[in-house]
Each structure stands twice: as structure tokens, then as C-alpha cells.
């Protein structure tokens, strides 16, 4: 993997590091729970004990936002894991065959408005982290199936797949041994870029009250709750907003950088 002279990858990683390192430390120290309510110190200004001040409940804004970022990335990561594993499995099953049931369902998924899907899931499961993870995973699933099928189909027509069949390998074994390792770089890039979308979806769903319920610290919910303070206490809106932006930008740039680092040598290596 060529990671030298890849400013996009490094910038993306740096942006993620700025948010995620303190977020992980905070989560370790506080368990990513909301800081204690302290009505005596509502809307406190910046100080040493509250570096970014406090919110309308007197909670430390920095701790709140960092815990929110941790929760958001955790949900995004679980959703992306789910959609990557399920999408890859379904995509591999559909690869090398005419589009039938699986691709039909994927197309149906693409035609369904994501927010409507989320609203349906929340109605069915109640507002919870599980429902949110399922909803975000469902947004990503059709694209993941399409990408996997496309890439795997391109590998399946190669002569070395025929050679492998001649050696006595079964289809499942060929998919595992030959196809999966060949499309792994693509899947890694796709997963990293999907994280950006997943963080954004998490923020969007929480903003619409379709995400995990309070008191779990959440960036989208903070934006929704504090937007009325945009003129009198701008930090309350700016900090969660900027955090979301840094995360999305970071995952996107890391994804692009990974694409450059992983794809290029593979193309050079191909005969």
C-alpha cells in the first residue's frame, strides 16, 4: 500500500484524530454518558473548568459534544459493519448471474425514501439505537450490494476463475478465495466513505427525533435543541455542527486517500 505522498489520507486521518482521540478518552472516562445537570451553572461562559462553557442544563459542552461524537461514530460504525457484511454477502450471491430477486430488492431499496424507512422502523421498534442502526444500515445496503456485485462479476469472468474451477474449487470456495481478496481494497474504501454518510445520517435522524432517545448525548439532537440559541449562545450550535462537519470531512478524505493508496498498485499489478 502506497501511503507516502498521499496528503488526502493524512489530512483526513488528522481531522478524524482531532475529534476521535479526545472523544475516545472522554468515553473511557465518562462511559459516553451525558455530564451531570448543574442548574447553578446554566449558560456558563468559557472557563478553565468548562473550556467551551455549559448548555441550558448546566452540562459541560465539551464533554457533551465529545461523548456525542463517540456515540455517533459508534452507531455509524455498527451500521456500516452491518451493511458491509450483509451487502457483501448478498452482492457475492448475486454476482455472475442475471439480476433477479436480490437485485430487484436492492432496486426497491434505492427507490424508497430513507427518512420514510427510518420513520417506519422507529414506529415499529420505538426510538432506539437499534432502530437507528438498522435504518442507517438499510440506507447503505442497496449501494453495497450493487458495488459488490459489479466488482465480483468483473472478477468472475477472469480466466483464473475458470482455471480454479478446473482445479476442482466449488463456487463458494472461489468466492471466498479469489473474489473476496480481490475486491477487499474496494470494500475498505467503500466502508470508510460510507462512515461519512452514516455519521451524517445519524445526525439527520437524531435531528428529526428519529434517533436514540435522550439522555444519551447526541450531536444531531443538540443541534435541534439549541438552534434557538444561535444568536445569544452561538457556541451551543457551532460546536456540535463543526464536530459533525469535521467527522464527515475526515471520513470522506480518508476514504478518498485510501482509494488512491489501495487501488493504484492493484491496477499496476494487473496483467
Amino acid at each position: 500500500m502506497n501511503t507516502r505522498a498521499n496528503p488526502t489520507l493524512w489530512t483526513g486521518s488528522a481531522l478524524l484524530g482531532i475529534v476521535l482521540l479526545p472523544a475516545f478518552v472522554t468515553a473511557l472516562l465518562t462511559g459516553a454518558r451525558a455530564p451531570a445537570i448543574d442548574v447553578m451553572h446554566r449558560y456558563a461562559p468559557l472557563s478553565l473548568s468548562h473550556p467551551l462553557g455549559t448548555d441550558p442544563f448546566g452540562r459541560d459542552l465539551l464533554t457533551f459534544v465529545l461523548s456525542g461524537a463517540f456515540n455517533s461514530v459508534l452507531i455509524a460504525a455498527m451500521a456500516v459493519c452491518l451493511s458491509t457484511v450483509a451487502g457483501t454477502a448478498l452482492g457475492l450471491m448475486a454476482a455472475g448471474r442475471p439480476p433477479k430477486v436480490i437485485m430487484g430488492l436492492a432496486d426497491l431499496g434505492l427507490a424508497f425514501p430513507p427518512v420514510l424507512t427510518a420513520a417506519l422502523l422507529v414506529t415499529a421498534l420505538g426510538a432506539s439505537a437499534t432502530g437507528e442502526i438498522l435504518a442507517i444500515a438499510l440506507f447503505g445496503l442497496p449501494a453495497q450490494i450493487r458495488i459488490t456485485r459489479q466488482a465480483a462479476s468483473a472478477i468472475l469472468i477472469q480466466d483464473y476463475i475458470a482455471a480454479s474451477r478446473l482445479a476442482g474449487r466449488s463456487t463458494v470456495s472461489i468466492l471466498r478465495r479469489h473474489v473476496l481478496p480481490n475486491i477487499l481494497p474496494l470494500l475498505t474504501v467503500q466502508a470508510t466513505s460510507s462512515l461519512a454518510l452514516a455519521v451524517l445520517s445519524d445526525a439527520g435522524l437524531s435531528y428529526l427525533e428519529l434517533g436514540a432517545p435522550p439522555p444519551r448525548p447526541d450531536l444531531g439532537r443538540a443541534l435541534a435543541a439549541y438552534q434557538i440559541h444561535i444568536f445569544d449562545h452561538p457556541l451551543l450550535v457551532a460546536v456540535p455542527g463543526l464536530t459533525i462537519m469535521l467527522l464527515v470531512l475526515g471520513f470522506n478524505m480518508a476514504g478518498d486517500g485510501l482509494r488512491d493508496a489501495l487501488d493504484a498498485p492493484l491496477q499496476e499489478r494487473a496483467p
Partner: protein
Amino acid sequence: MTPLLQVRDLSVHSLARPILHSLSFTLEAGQILAVIGESGSGKSTLALSLMGLLPAGFQPHGEIRLNDENLLTLTEPQWCQIRGKTLGMVFQEPMSALNPTRRIGAQIADTLRLHTTLTRSEIRDQTLVLMKQVGLLKAGVSERAYPHQLSGGQRQRALLAMALACKPALLIADEFTTALDARTRADMMALVHQHTKTHRMAVLMISHDLGLVRHHADHVLVLKDGICVEQGPTASIFDAPAHPYTQALLAMSLHGAAHTPLSRLPVYTVPA
């Protein structure tokens, strides 16, 4: 003694269009049968039917008996058991028949790993023996090399090593020497020949190189539009071809086709 391979009335249809017409032949262990004919005559379809790898939509009828077992009735898991073990195949295109992301040694070892109960170190030793046999070690190719580090000839040697790994009873060689230089071609054919002697391996060889066929094959089968127009011992086919198509084919390939204007070449069509 029953022959190793018995093909009886093999027909293959694709969308009701016949590709092969009731083909019948036998092949004894240790013998080389060459299938010749122009492009599109059904040679590769024959090879794919024998391997059970006909593309979707191709329907085979008749009987292919290998060691007295009808291959056309096998299920896919049963095919996986005999492909690579009893049946080996090498084909024409060595440049794309190896996985670019896996090492040569691992790919050669694959057949052994799938069909034998050898331990990891025994498989490694056996792989090195195979690489030595096909002349890869002599050429300085390491088992840890990737396909892109090998020349076309070396890749074809690696593919032959993969096909010979389990000492198959029948090797199907679909124009596998076409992309090779004369020296490598001779080396590879010598190796295949040696296997027919030492392991009684039978070879079904598909080739356009009639010089090679004449030199190595024991029997020849001539295909034209999916029909076997003539078959017999190599010497009799080459010395006294009975069928006009065989005569034309031999005349074009062996006796200065370059000097004969295309318009004067005899055109023969097989009656339906």
C-alpha cells in the same frame, strides 16, 4: 480392457442450435488423442463438456464415460471432486489464467490442498517438485513470485504444473502451446509425453499445430461444424486422409498454404 474415456453419441445444443453432433470416440490410458479442425468447429465445446463446464444454455446429450462413470449425470459437488484430481486441463491463455493477487507457489499448491490429505510441509515439498519438473526452478522463479513477475512461457509452465499436480488420469490441453515459442513448446510437450509414459496419463489435445499433432498424437479426430468427419491413427490420417475436408485441412497447414491463393483453396461443407 475398457478404455479410460468413452464418448458415445455426444451432442451439445445451444438454443436449439447444434454445436456438436453425435460424437463418439474412445481414449485409452497412456494415449494422446488430438482433436483438429478450424475455429468454430466445436473443439473447445468438446473440452468444456468433458470438464462439465459448459456455459449456461448449452445442453449436452449422450454419454461421457470416464473409468466407466457417466460424467453427464454428475452433480456439481461430484464434479468438484474429479476436476483437478482425475481430470486436468490447461488452456490457451496463460496471461490471465493466474490470479494476480496470489503467489505462484500457493496457486500450484491449491490443487494438492483441495484433493489430497498431505500436510502443509508435504504440499510445499510437492509444489517445489512440480515447479522443478516444469522447469520453473531452473528458470529462477521462486514459489513466492507473483504472476506479473513471470513471462508468458513461465506462466504456462505454472499452469501445467497445476494441471499435473494430482497426476490426473486424463489431461485436456486446449491449444495450450499456441502462445509459446518453439523451444518452450517442445519442452512442455516432452513433459506431457513423459507423463503419458510414467503415469499412464491420457491426453486429449486440441491443436492447430499439425506438426505437433503428427509428432506426438497417437490418434487424430477431425471435427468440422461439430461433426467428426474422420478419426483414426495419426499415421493413417496424415498419410492417407480419406475425407476431402481432412485433405484440405492438411494441405493448407502442411504444404505451403502461403503459396496457395485463398480463392483456390477447396471449400468443403458437411451436409446437414
